[in-house]
């Protein structure tokens, strides 16, 4: 049991000491996850709005496909992108494998279905009610859409928080596409996997604590933010 207590005390020392390598791992995780979430939302949110606002054949099928892709294991996404970026793959000449860009590509693909599906389900129920209410109050089509986007912003923000949490905690894509290279592509989760296998519990536990703390802080801030505007419905 001692090794666990030793690990915890080492973790506290690492967090408090401001160890540069430790904090650079944390920073890289935050940076890559933020970029992936940003890219996935730039692509996914407009797609979700399109799927909700436009009626066309195959729409439900697309939503179902997106829903199914939410549960694809991270290593499968890793494998898929790996096969495209590896030297023998179609984009092999770009030499992107084991770079931060590769991790961002993989992570973006990982959470794109999450962003699309969760946004669709959060704004779908809103759609009819908000636009009908606005119309009954005399809003033009354009004014109805404006109020719809405004009302949807909290639901969309919640989806992005979930997407960030998913990508921040994933290990498969980062490991397969980043290669866990020290000071370059080593993220919190890949470092935990490596250090634990080496028996370095202190660093693993310290990173685990930070990972949970960041996830908690983001969700907590979001909760505070939405409480300000929560409706009675």
């Amino acid at each position: 049991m001692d090794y666990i207590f030793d690990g915890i005390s080492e973790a506290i020392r690492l967090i408090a000491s401001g160890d540069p390598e430790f904090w650079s791992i944390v920073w890289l995780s935050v940076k890559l996850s933020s970029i992936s979430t940003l890219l996935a939302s730039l692509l996914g949110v407009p797609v979700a709005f399109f799927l909700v606002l436009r009626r066309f054949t195959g729409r439900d099928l697309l939503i179902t496909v997106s829903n199914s892709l939410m549960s694809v294991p991270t290593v499968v996404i890793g494998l898929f992108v790996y096969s495209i970026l590896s030297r023998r793959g179609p984009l092999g000449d770009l030499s992107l494998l084991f770079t931060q860009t590769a991790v961002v590509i993989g992570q973006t693909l990982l959470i794109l279905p999450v962003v699309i599906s969760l946004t669709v389900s959060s704004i779908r129920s809103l759609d009819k009610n908000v636009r009908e209410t606005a119309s009954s109050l005399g809003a033009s089509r354009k004014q109805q859409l404006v109020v719809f986007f405004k009302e949807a912003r909290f639901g969309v923000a919640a989806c992005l928080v979930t997407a960030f949490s998913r990508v921040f905690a994933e290990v498969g894509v980062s490991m397969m596409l980043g290669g866990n290279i020290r000071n370059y592509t080593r993220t919190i989760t890949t470092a935990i996997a490596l250090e634990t296998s080496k028996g370095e519990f202190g660093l693993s536990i310290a990173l685990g604590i930070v990972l949970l703390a960041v996830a908690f802080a983001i969700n907590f801030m979001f909760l505070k933010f939405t409480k300000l505007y929560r409706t009675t419905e």
Partner: protein
Amino acid sequence: MMFLLNDTKVSYGSFTLDPGRLELEKGKIYCLTGPNGSGKSTLLKIVGLQLKPDTGTVLFDGETINWSDADKLLKQRRKISYMLQDSRLFRCSVFDNTAYALKIRGEHPDEIRKKVNKMLERLEIGNLAKRNLHGLSGGESQRVRLARNLVLDTPVYILDEPSAGLDTRGRELLSDILTSYNREKGSTIIFCSHHKEEAYRMAPELISVTDGHIAWIPRENVLSGSAEKAGNKLYRFFNDKIDHLYFSYDHEPKGTVSIAIDPDEIILSASEVHTSARNCLPGTVKSITETTSSIQLTVSAGEDFTVLITKNSLEEMKLTKGSPVYLLFKATAVKVVN
């Protein structure tokens, strides 16, 4: 004429709303009553120009609605202040919610501020203006919804269940505002309600909606006179023709009182019986009219009362013109109309 629905029909699955020809006049108050799912809200949506009927035409203010002319339709919709049953409050302050419909109509901000504050005060929620929706009670939320619609100065107000969730004070305020809009501005008001008393009090025109069909409810047995206290929430009604008619009422009636008794609530008896019904008035049958579904009797018991009975009852009681009868009805069956 404000609205004319001509052979309009809407179907959802097995349900069809078929109001036939429905004419609603300018400057009147109409109340739709009927059970849940009978088609009241759907009818209001058509009248509110929000739902295009499957067949038939809708005339509003002398013009036939062209559902494909979006610009024209928007202008016509803006003459109507329509509150949906599940009208959504937006995620902003009470003030901004109330101001929404004025803002989208392009009114000047100073004017909006004045109107919104006045309406919030009138509905006694002026203190909530800066609050966001979090923590508002159901009744307060409903007052905000009402404020958002009543702040508009339109010739027509269509309100779907406006008193849902309101306390007695809220219902009083709503009824005061609607009555004053109707009297002072000549607004046409169409609403639906489950509160029969409220319907009787505010609406001279009652429309019943059942299974997608409509029927005008005649306002029968309306009497005017004075009232005096006869017990806890119990009053005795009298005028120069009637001496003893008891009714229960939550408030102390003042001055001249008008009461109405639903013909369905009156039971006819051949002899004087003692039941839990507070009122037992002796009278004589004045006329007998056969309608498609029942027999309508006019019974003179001081005042003339309309009573509905079945054909079987008429035969069993062997009633003819001049037969002596007793009218039995509960004190709670008497509604105060003004």
